[in-house]
């Protein structure tokens, strides 16, 4: 799950940052000349800077391979089910809410009034996909449900006092 990967990655690097600051704080009471420190650590910085750039490049390339914006390549004769979604204060008009496992779906999402957010949650209440629901524009979400169950649509953009009550359900069967 992406959230878990994101959380662990963040935690790891945050602890690294904490460790570095901790070590420097511990070593701060000692007093040494600045010039040699500068010389040594400028050299280290070049190495550190380059490693960081390389790491970021690798991550960028790796994470940009597959973007949620791209229409997936569908198998022959397997056109996606197009579902029209219209958000409004405060509810959802969804043209179809029952789906089959393995059925490729394209949600075409828009709004009748203000900005809303179209977020799809699985049965364990993990967010699995989202896009913005915007007046005058249509944003698309491509999804194929792998598991049967009741999925929920939650509003993910603040839209007024009943923002947290904008919930709809989607049924996915075998």
């Amino acid at each position: 799950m992406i959230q878990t990967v994101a959380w662990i990655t963040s935690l790891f690097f945050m602890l690294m940052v904490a460790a570095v600051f901790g070590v420097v704080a511990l070593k701060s009471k000692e007093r040494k000349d600045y010039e040699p420190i500068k010389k040594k650590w400028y050299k280290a910085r070049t190495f550190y800077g380059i490693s960081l750039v390389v790491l970021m490049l690798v991550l960028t390339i790796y994470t940009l391979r597959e973007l949620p914006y791209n229409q997936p390549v569908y198998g022959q004769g397997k056109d996606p089910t197009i579902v029209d979604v219209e958000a409004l204060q405060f509810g959802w008009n969804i043209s179809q809410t029952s789906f089959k496992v393995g059925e490729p779906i394209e949600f075409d999402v828009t709004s009748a009034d203000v900005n809303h957010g179209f977020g799809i949650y699985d049965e364990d209440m993990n967010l699995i996909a989202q896009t913005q629901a915007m007046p005058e524009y249509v944003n698309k979400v491509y999804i194929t449900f792998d598991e049967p169950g009741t999925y929920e649509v939650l509003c993910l953009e603040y839209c007024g006092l009943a923002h947290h009550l904008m919930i709809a359900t989607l049924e996915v069967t075998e």
Partner: protein
Amino acid sequence: MEMIRKKRSDNSLIATYLAIGATVVGVMMIFGILMLLAQGGVLELQPAAFYQFLTIHGTGMIGAAALAGAAVMWYFLRNYVDLSKKIFGLNLLFSLIGIVMVIIGVFSFEYASSWTFLYPLPALSANAWGTIGALLYLVGMLVLGVGFLLMYIDVGRAIIKKYGSLGKGLGWDVISGKKAEADAPPATVVASTMVTIVNVTALTAGATVLIMNIINVINPSFTFDPLLAKNLTYAFGHIFANSIIYMGVIAVYEILPRYTNRPWKANRIFLIAWTMSTSFTLVIYTHHMLMDSVMPKWMLIMGQILSYANGLPVLVITAYGALMIVYKSGIKWDMASGLIFISMFGWTVGVVPAIVDATIVVNHVMHNTKWVPGHFHMYMGLGAVVMIFGFMYFLSKEDSSLKTNLFDRIALICYTLSIIGVSGGFLVSGALSTPRRWATHFPDWMGPAVFGAVSGVLAAISVTIFVIHFIRYMMVRNKGNEGKVFHERKLA
């Protein structure tokens, strides 16, 4: 002598800025705690009240921190360029008028669009608030923005007068090799130039979209392109919120060298880093729009790439520089130096979850979850605001004979741990897919909110102690110290 006396008198305006800023931050924390208690199921709060609190907390925190950040910048920048005190005072006046209008709009007229006032929500509230509330808020924000805009124009003018152009304020002639590194503009000038450039842009975008909203509220038949409005809103919000830390960091550049007796000079790499920050800060607001697939795809991909790159100047230059200057320096730790060091830690750790969230595939499942407040409470609450607190202790030490006590030191530790608690609670919530800006939570999501609320109480108490110290300083300096001149002391 004359010069020093003038500076001392300017200090009282600076101190007023800081006292207002820090007090508002403390008060806004109470609204933050109340929101978390409501989300945690501990407190029964009407949705209308919750969203009013959300609006006032977001607006108040950003406004107060920006005000205090401006005071930090002004305090140091006046040593290098000739700033207008009148305009600095005018900004405070405009801000106070703006703040009062915002408060009346939110609490008397139930206006609650959140601080991002995303078009067309101000006009289309489903009857939750009316035209008057919306106008009070939007015009209040406009007044606030105009005050800041005037101040940055004055800062820009002063820098251009002294250095020739804003490009030279960023040290471009040193980068290109026309001028020697030794003649580079000081770090404070470089940072102030950067902030001037980005915030004049941000405030122009903000004023434009505020006026669009105001017209739409007065006459709903005048409509605008919602995607354009969204771009302008996030350009304003992202840049303006981020600029706070770039003003705050001036305190780091100025204070750490004094405490360690080590110079922190702008060299070529430093200048390149700041030019990078300037341009990235201007364009990476698109990472707020990664879930708008109608945006040109190349813009969104650049949004990810440049957001990553925007981490480099901090991680490789500023944070690294702060660590190097402290390492084996024999630094004297006190409230000011301690807070300043912690603020660099806060900024740096806050970069991590921000970069993670700027990754499009991650953003797809974390955008608008509580992960987002998680990362910015870290770098605002543990970064920007702590720079300001650190500066407040620096100023009170520099400008009076007031001593700190045990309470201050306990507050420092308490504050650090509690903001880690608040932000950590948000991050865990985000990892659990909890949506942000939800007045109520499902039971599974309540735990981290309650934890955050308890941490928040400690943070608010700590800030109270910081503010009490600062108010005591202001009283001491107003009382018998008139005429007694404190020289710039070497602290190390």
